[in-house]
């Protein structure tokens, strides 16, 4: 287990380094720069700015300087938001996305898992068709339709929640619901598929022949195998869920992290792009590692090798 963990750790660092390198050079290939605005910046000012952020040095020197400061845990100041450090920007925005994402995850699992299990057990009944139709609608509806629909119902018609913003304690409900319902739809379909596959196996017949009651067959004999597709899907999805969605943050006007992924690129904010991408890559690597551990726990065959 120790060797496995160390190996995965080395692998993770390698992946992050590659992502770091590719991102660093790729953004420099895009036209424009952090100081290109509608009003042209006076050449003297521009020179001072470039000097301040080290942009006047050769690209390869910049790369190693940046890499060095990342290794020291210094994620550099933003090039667009004057006087702001990237760490501070992320620290302000990430908890909001994390809170909404966590609630969305609870909603997604809380609705998706039971719906999928019931649909699989009651295959080809109205319950199955009902849940799967809802799931299909959930998958087909984009967030920018689901979000405004929820806003119109709960915000405008019934006036239970604010339509947008991040002021009151209840403001997380609608964005979480928008995100959670859509993931719930995916999870429900994956759970149903996984459970159906397991429930058709010979060992389920063995369990029935032993007189195991139906509920125990589902919970003890089938669930572990049936959940594998969901775990495989959730691992990588987790990083995306917790770092926020640009669209949802725009619809609900939230100061989350999702907006920075997009706006930093438009702003050519070289250092902020790098910081957010490295954060996402790290989260992805971590969640993938956790998924592997979870799969090994669920599946004794993997555990052995």
């Amino acid at each position, binding site marked *: 287990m120790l060797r496995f963990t160390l190996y995965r750790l080395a692998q993770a660092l390698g992946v992050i380094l590659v992502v770091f390198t590719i991102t660093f050079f790729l953004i420099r290939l895009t036209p424009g720069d952090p100081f290109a605005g509608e009003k042209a910046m006076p050449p003297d000012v521009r020179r001072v700015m470039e000097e301040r952020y080290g942009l006047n040095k050769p690209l390869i020197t910049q790369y190693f300087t940046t890499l060095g400061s990342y290794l020291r845990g210094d994620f550099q100041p933003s090039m667009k938001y004057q006087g702001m450090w990237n760490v501070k920007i992320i620290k302000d925005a990430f908890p909001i996305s994390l809170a909404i994402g966590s609630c969305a995850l609870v909603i997604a699992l809380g609705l998706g898992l039971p719906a999928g299990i019931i649909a699989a057990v009651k295959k080809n009944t109205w319950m199955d068709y009902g849940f799967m139709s809802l799931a299909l609608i959930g998958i087909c509806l984009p967030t920018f339709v689901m979000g405004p629909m929820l806003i119109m119902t709960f915000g405008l018609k019934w006036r239970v929640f604010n339509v947008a913003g991040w002021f009151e304690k209840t403001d997380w409900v609608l964005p979480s619901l928008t995100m959670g319902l859509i993931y719930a739809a995916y999870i429900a379909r994956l759970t149903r598929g996984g459970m159906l596959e397991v429930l058709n196996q*010979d*060992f389920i017949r*063995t369990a029935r022949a032993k*007189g*195991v009651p139906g509920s125990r067959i589902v919970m003890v004999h089938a669930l572990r195998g049936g959940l594998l597709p969901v775990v495989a899907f959730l691992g990588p999805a987790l990083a995306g869920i917790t770092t926020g969605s640009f669209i949802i943050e725009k619809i609900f006007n939230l100061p989350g992290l999702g907006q920075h992924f997009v706006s930093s690129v438009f702003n050519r904010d070289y250092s902020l792009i790098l910081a957010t991408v490295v954060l996402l890559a790290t989260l992805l690597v971590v969640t993938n590692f956790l998924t592997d551990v979870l799969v090994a726990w669920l599946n004794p*065959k993997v555990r052995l090798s």
Partner: protein
Amino acid sequence: MSTVLDVQDLKVSFHTRNGVVRAVDGVSFKVEKGKTTGIVGESGSGKSVTCYSLLGLVPMPPGRIEGGSAKFGDVDLLKLSEKELQRIRGSRISMIFQDPMTSLNPWLRVGTQVAEPLRLHEGLSKSEAWKRAVEALREVGIPDPEKRIHQYPHEFSGGMRQRVMIAMALITRPELLIADEPTTALDVTIQKQVLDLIRDLQKRLGIAVVFITHDLAVVSEVCDYVNVMYAGRLVEASPVQELFARPRHAYTQALMRSIPALQRKGEPLYTIPGLPPDLANLPSGCAFRPRQTPERQALCLTDRQPPLVEVSPGHWAQDCPGCLIRD
């Protein structure tokens, strides 16, 4: 001698898009205490469905039990609710299956699975049930059971897994064991070991066994009484020595001619021509008629199904003029 199971006129059908498939059509047989009753037939002859329907393991729908009775002790298995059947399955009637590779749950420890019938039916505590499970594994000849019980099925070989299945089936000391082709997926040396094991345990525990197989060599080895099934019906039923000495029905004879070991070396292997009939669309008369030789075919019943008659004491065969060979 006491009868453990008495099946009368069992009828099971499947209602599918292509019509009604009569998988089992009026099958009757008895299973005596301490004896082994074989059910032989080709794939699709209804031998497995016969046994699954007794325990309510046929998926319903599309399956449906159309009629008959199955007296087990003083209850009719076919009339019991799912709850009542659950109490009988795995405690008084156990089953083992064809493929030991897929019949054990890969996610659960062997001990959990072997001890489960005790936990469910006798309400034993986990430690008590696991202690008994270790004994059960030792009884079926698994070396080092204290260690093996904590392992997972993929750490066992095929033969060992079938031993685990047997241990699991017999741990509650059932009155009846249904073995659905338990040796088909194993290679020959392991087959022999598993057959010997089943026979030893049967003798020691005095249980009745229903043995489903398509392998006549296995039948001659383990069975006391044989039922030959074809197209969902019994075509012949007899004590085992009598059946092998004097097979009466053309189908049974063809089956015996197909045993490779009984054929002369160098000759092409004998196979029964044609395929088993489509059960959704059975011919009205004798079901074996399309596969008979032309001169015999002319004699077969075409207007009604041939009834079973007792041709000699204890030996029954379908009374079709083309298929039944009398002395």
